[in-house]
């Protein structure tokens, strides 16, 4: 089945109020071309679930986020994401802050079609008080231990970015870490994968072992060819993080004029124009 599609077609499927999971980790292999398409859309009141990076900062800056479910938001080389910080400090969205591992278990519960998974991480910390809807469950065995019943993080949509994909929805990571992209796909009703390059299925093993084809076509509903689609986050080995661009992005948090200029040049434009603007710097 040919599942090739475009950012615009994906956005047309999304609705305000949806729960959207975003793959990658921090400022690494984020599906930024899809995030940029959300910025250009009328979508709002989103619940975003992610190991956050500039995807979160941008969605917050645009006021798209009603609730954020996260363990952290970081630009890695810039530890604190300044746009996310501003939105948090303004109380602009509901902060469903978790331990990083709890986020994994919430996705896993959804992936396994379970209502919750018992988890010890979080007990004793303020994760419990900032998520007052979380309940505990007592072990039915002799130990009787009380654990957090981490609710399944069921996603309406998962967005991930891979190095290579084929038209049928198999996806390959060529960098060091698969992150939790597979879990995001398993936890979601609709799954969209952008990639640096669409290749023939028989060509996957020219660039990586069979183990690097970590996403299979049962896990994906749509494939978008988006060269530079993770920019400015890193997408190794295709490209490292664009540190100069990331610095420029981060600096706009302190300077409204710089933000307006950045927005006009890079975000109020199509993806093709974005990629051109990046190249012509």
């Amino acid at each position, binding site marked *: 089945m040919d599942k090739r599609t475009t950012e615009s077609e994906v956005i047309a499927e999304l609705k305000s109020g949806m729960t959207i999971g975003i793959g990658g980790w921090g400022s690494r292999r984020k599906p930024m071309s899809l995030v940029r398409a959300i910025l250009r859309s009328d979508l709002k009141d989103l619940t975003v679930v992610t190991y956050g990076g500039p995807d979160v900062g941008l969605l917050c800056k645009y006021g798209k986020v009603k609730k954020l479910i996260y363990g*952290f938001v970081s630009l890695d080389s810039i530890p*604190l994401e300044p746009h996310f910080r501003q939105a948090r400090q303004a109380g602009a969205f509901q902060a469903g802050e978790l331990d990083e591992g709890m986020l994994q278990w919430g996705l896993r519960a959804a992936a396994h079609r379970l209502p919750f998974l018992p988890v010890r991480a979080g*007990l*004793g910390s303020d994760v419990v008080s900032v998520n007052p809807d979380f309940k505990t469950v007592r072990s039915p065995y002799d130990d009787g231990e009380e654990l957090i019943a981490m609710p399944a993080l069921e996603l309406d949509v998962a967005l991930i970015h891979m190095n290579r994909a084929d038209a049928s929805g198999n996806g390959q990571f060529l960098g060091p*870490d698969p992150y939790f992209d597979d879990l995001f796909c398993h936890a979601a009703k609709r799954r969209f994968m952008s990639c640096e390059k669409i290749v023939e299925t028989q060509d996957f093993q020219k660039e990586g072992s069979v183990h690097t084809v970590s996403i299979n076509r049962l896990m994906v509903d749509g494939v978008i060819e988006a060269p530079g689609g993770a920019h400015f986050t890193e997408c190794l080995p295709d490209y490292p993080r664009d540190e100069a661009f990331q610095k420029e992005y981060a600096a706009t948090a302190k300077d409204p004029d710089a933000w307006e200029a950045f927005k006009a040049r890079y975000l109020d434009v199509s993806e093709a124009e974005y990629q051109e603007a990046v190249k012509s710097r």
Partner: protein
Amino acid sequence: MSDATRAEICAVAIAECFRDDGETLMSAFGTTATVGGRLAKLTFAPDLFMTDGTATAAETVPALGGEHAPDVVKGAWMPFRLFFDNVVWTTNRHAMMMASQIDRFGNQNFACIGPHEKPKAQLLGMRGAPGNTIYHRNSYFVPNHTAKVFVEKVDVVSGVGYDRAAELGPATARHHDIHRVVSNRGVFDFETPDHSMRLISVHPGVSVEDVIENTGFELAHDDVVPETRMPTDEELGLIRDFLDPKGLINKEIPS
């Protein structure tokens, strides 16, 4: 030996935290803590396991910033999922985390300052601190020991301290273990009857009074508090000639 800087003394105090850990994952955050952890592996704790900071184990110790140098021997694959599965959930790790605030019982905050609903300053977020503190041994490194960091009560608890762990009961708290705190002023543990923080050594040039004045809660200490040990010549050589030739730790902790 006598010309050791405060940062070098701290690095050795950090290394000492890992001395008896055997074969476990050593994670350290912050420049001086990174140097200290690696110093332990290079000297008295060779079985420590560490990563290159990305997704692979480093089986030989890299210099600061040299994690991907070609001569670093890479071992097993360690992506984030294995980090969780292999060392956090199995308790086989000793992390030295930072603390923006820490209290008398070792509750730690690096999530945010002010109320969580609308913080005055958003910091890192919870990250892995809740899970780390309930699952495995942790220590803390504080390069700027003041009464604003060592506080009576932290604004938000990201890392769980001894009083909260005790409330969870022995089953849940069985892996909870805050080993030590190393600051730019001294070294601390929680080996008191109520697991409140205790000053166990002051760095050379620091008085017990200095530490107490810069601590926002009642700090336990013996009548005589020893000085933190000085680095050996071998340790100073390893820090200056190999681990940190640019002396970056001295920027994190000025003498």
